[in-house]
């Protein structure tokens, strides 16, 4: 910690510079696309219901901010609950799979074979069973984000070298100590990899769930806008949904940086 404090200032300047160097071209490309898009719409007089220009979409976001916020909150809730379920059930299952032979040989192949069912195809069934509320969307988000989280946790917890396990056993460590001091921390980078994929999937799951049957949410808002030929609102919903996805993804990435500081160190070393 002491080292972090003393080297913080030069690192900060270096980071800002490398951020500009790294992100500059990407930002430039985005800016160019938006300018071309805006000009194209204006030059060819594209009607708004076919392709609204970026300025029209931004206007729409500002004028409909309350509608987008209320529906966005519903979708966010579904995503977070579905993702939370995946973590709460997936991580303990991964621990079981690592420690229980029977579980590994029976339950795990079963889970893998279930993975071949497209989760989206289950959505209509879930709606039939669970109704029009947020529950079926939470379930779709859960089902779709569950698998990457479990798999990456299992892979991570198995990644400890056998010498590492021997080493702590030779010091007299029991299974619990071995798990807490070796397997779990060793698995964290892999677990967070799975959580990031899972979070992205949960966004897809919740939105698709809302497409099937919903009374609120951003997916629902898109369906309504589509029927009303309100293309600008359709795009506005996509923008908000993307922002929501980016926000939630970065939230996981932020927790990762706090929980796995040594991993960032390693990637910085490689750079």
């Amino acid at each position, binding site marked *: *910690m*002491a*080292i972090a404090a003393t080297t913080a200032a030069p690192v900060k300047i270096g980071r800002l510079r490398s951020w500009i160097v790294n992100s500059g071209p990407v930002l430039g490309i985005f800016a160019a696309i938006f300018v071309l898009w805006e000009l194209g719409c204006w030059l060819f007089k594209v009607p708004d219901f076919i392709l609204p220009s970026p300025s029209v979409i931004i206007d729409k976001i500002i004028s409909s901010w309350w509608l987008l916020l209320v529906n966005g909150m519903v979708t966010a809730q579904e995503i977070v609950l579905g993702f939370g379920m995946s973590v709460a059930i997936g991580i303990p299952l991964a621990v079981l799979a690592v420690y229980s032979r029977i579980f590994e040989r029976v339950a795990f192949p079963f889970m893998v074979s279930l993975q071949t069912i497209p989760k989206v195809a289950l959505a209509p069934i879930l709606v039939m069973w669970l109704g029009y509320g947020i529950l079926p969307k939470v379930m779709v988000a859960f089902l779709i984000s569950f698998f990457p989280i479990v798999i990456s946790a299992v892979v991570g917890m198995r990644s400890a*070298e056998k*010498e*590492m396990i*021997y*080493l*702590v*056993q*030779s*010091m*007299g*460590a029991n299974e619990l*100590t071995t798990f807490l*001091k*070796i397997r779990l*921390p*060793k698995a*964290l980078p892999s677990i967070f990899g799975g959580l990031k994929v899972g979070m992205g999937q949960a966004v897809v799951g919740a939105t698709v769930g809302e497409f099937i049957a919903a009374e609120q949410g951003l997916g629902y808002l898109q369906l309504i806008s589509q029927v009303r030929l309100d293309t600008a609102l359709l795009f506005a919903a996509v923008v908000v949904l993307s922002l929501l996805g980016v926000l939630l993804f970065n939230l996981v990435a932020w927790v990762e940086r706090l929980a*796995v500081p*040594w*991993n960032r*160190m*390693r990637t910085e*070393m490689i750079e």
Partner: protein
Amino acid sequence: MASSGSGVQIGLRSVSKRYMTASGDAVDALGEIDLDVAAGEFVSIVGPSGCGKSTLMMLVSGLIPATTGTITVGGVPVKGAGGKAGIVFQRDVLLDWRTVFSNVMLPVEIKRLDKETHLKKARDLLRSVGLAEFEEKYPAELSGGMRQRVAICRALVQDPGLLLMDEPFGALDALTREQMNLDLQRIWLRDRNTVIFITHSIEEAVLLSDRVVVMTSRPGRIADILEVDLPRPRGAHTRSEKQFVDCVERIRRHFMALGVLSET
């Protein structure tokens, strides 16, 4: 140093190890072995791949049980892991998520030893291998040689009566390896732990050891034991001495006889 002359005596009596493979075949990794190591002695074990060197180390540390025979460490029969041995592997297996200092303190945490006295010990050890400045670094920031030094400090912090080293310098470049040999000798001359040192390098074994055990393969048996009574501290000058050259030559001839080395 509190650990001065803290080495323990090791005894192996008709120890053998037979593994069962997944297909149900029995593999004799280690034939019947009798070996005594005096307290504070440095013994190297050399032999071809598959001669059961690593198995021997696992047996002495209590990580796996022997099929026959008895092993005593400090006069006490080995029953399961958690004994007096400090272990160093070819891979340093440092924990990436811990700082250098916290890696060295791992045995203290797991064995629930007194923290205060061992904090000082850990600091002294790191200083003695030139890593005082690196206490708060993560392993990813260190070179291979530095990492292996940390691994050795980790094995030594608990005042082990016995140091088990399984090809500890096998992954290092030749120059770093020579330096590590000298560092290890210096630490050993100071602490006088009993050391069982497994290596593929004949020169390394002769340079460091009081005795060199030559093993045959499948099942592993002791082919020869050589006494090396060259004066200490040994170094680059030792390599040109007649006894050094003779010992290396004698071990090499064993390997030729075993068919591990051939000149044609």
